[in-house]
């Protein structure tokens, strides 16, 4: 399982001051903590919703450069703005990166997909378009198909694409989880070389004991073919769910990861 650590997000009250005050030491400390906990990528989202576009460009450049200089781990550059993403990619200086994310929306397809081709990065592709989040798996896959067409046009190989079937809180619609899972299965079937990713914790929004729900959902998604999750690698319940899930779906050769964790 590819684990994309979600903590470095400026909408979090503990991270916001780190970005605003340019606390290099704190940022590096957090990144190291996530890397040590088992993150494969670290997601970096510096958008506080307050600053100007130029502020965000500067913040992203600073955050990516700061982490890249001190922590050897691939980074996931998280923004909806192509200019902010490109600032992060430049600061990354050709080290492994992922763009989070594009939608099947004209503006995104034209500006963000080419960046993934030009910088040879992975790309998170959300199964949604101009009209929002589709309500059926078929429509979500159609959005993925549109992104796939643009990826072909801009030389982004399918193995670099992480399709996100989208996860909505189950609390307001008890069928949401199944909708995501069914979409996941269809994506894996249609785009065999592509990878899949979900933002895990959305599912449990508004309910108690969220880690338990997240862990259960994660394992169901693993069975459906999930390759990556944007999640909290510091959460023990989730990391255990990954180790046990991988062991049971044949993704842990010789049970090395499982036995190392629990022996």
């Amino acid at each position: 399982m590819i684990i994309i650590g979600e903590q470095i997000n400026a909408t979090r009250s503990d991270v916001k001051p780190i970005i605003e005050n340019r606390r290099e030491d704190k940022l590096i400390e957090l990144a190291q903590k996530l890397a040590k906990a088992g993150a494969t990528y670290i997601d970096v989202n510096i958008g506080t919703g307050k600053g100007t576009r130029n502020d965000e460009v500067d913040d992203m450049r600073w955050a990516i450069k700061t982490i890249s200089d001190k922590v050897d781990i691939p980074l996931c550059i998280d923004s909806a703005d192509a200019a902010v993403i490109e600032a992060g990619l430049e600061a990354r200086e050709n080290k492994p990166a992922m763009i989070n994310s594009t939608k099947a929306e004209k503006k995104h397809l034209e500006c963000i997909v080419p960046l993934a081709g030009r910088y040879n990065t992975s790309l998170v592709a959300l199964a949604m378009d101009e009209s929002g989040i589709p309500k059926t798996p078929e429509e979500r896959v159609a959005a993925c198909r549109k992104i796939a067409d643009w990826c072909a046009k801009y030389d982004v190989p399918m193995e670099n694409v992480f399709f996100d079937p989208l996860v909505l809180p189950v609390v307001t619609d008890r069928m949401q989880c199944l909708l995501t899972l069914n979409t996941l299965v269809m994506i894996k079937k249609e785009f065999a070389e592509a990878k899949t990713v979900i933002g895990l914790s959305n599912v449990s929004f508004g309910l108690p004991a969220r880690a338990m729900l997240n862990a259960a959902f994660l394992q169901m998604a693993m069975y459906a073919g999930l390759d990556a999750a944007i999640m909290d690698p510091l959460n023990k319940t989730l990391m255990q769910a990954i180790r046990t899930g991988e062991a049971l779906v044949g993704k842990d050769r010789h049970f090395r990861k499982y036995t190392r964790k629990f022996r």
Partner: protein
Amino acid sequence: MNEQELIEKIAYNVIQGRVVAEDEGFNEGLEGQPAVTELMEQAVEQNIDAKKLVVECLTGSMEDVGEKYDKGIYLIPDMLASAECVGAAMDILGPRLAKAGIESKGRFILATVAGDLHDIGKNIVGIMLKGAGFEVIDLGNDVSADHIVEETRKNNAQFLGLSALLTTTMREMEKVVKALQNEGIRDKVRVLIGGAPTSDKFAKQIGADAYCRDAFHAVDILRKMNI
């Protein structure tokens, strides 16, 4: 790498249970480094004596693995990973050993007896025996006494391993031994038995040659038989 370094490195990787370079080992942080397959191919390229490679890289390492398993340091998947390494090494060395006129330690028929569907233990025994240099013919589970005897004769097998995990099916083993006698080939084959309900006493009672507690014990017993 000189010959001795290469041999030590292969032996180490057998113990670590790393078949190919991308494999993790028992210890952390080994992935990416050449493993048994890559190293053994290099050894063959360097023309290191095949028999020496078997003895110094495989046999001793598996003894070490057996010890670790007995002590509870290694678990079943660790042991299987090492056995898989031996299998991979033997695939590479096989043609060379044959060319050098080095024969297998013998043909070994394995079966779970009639009425019994358990085969995990038997399969582990099979892997370990291959690793120890035997030619293994696995007949599967729920195998009738007649079929076992027929295959033993047809293949000129020197060894027969019988498994049963139920008190109701362990009696089948006795039938197999009797059938071997009736066919007049009992003295041509050594019969080893194993499985949870069986014991040393039971082996003696039904006229088998040995009872094996587990896969390592089986290999150990065969060694003591001077094979």
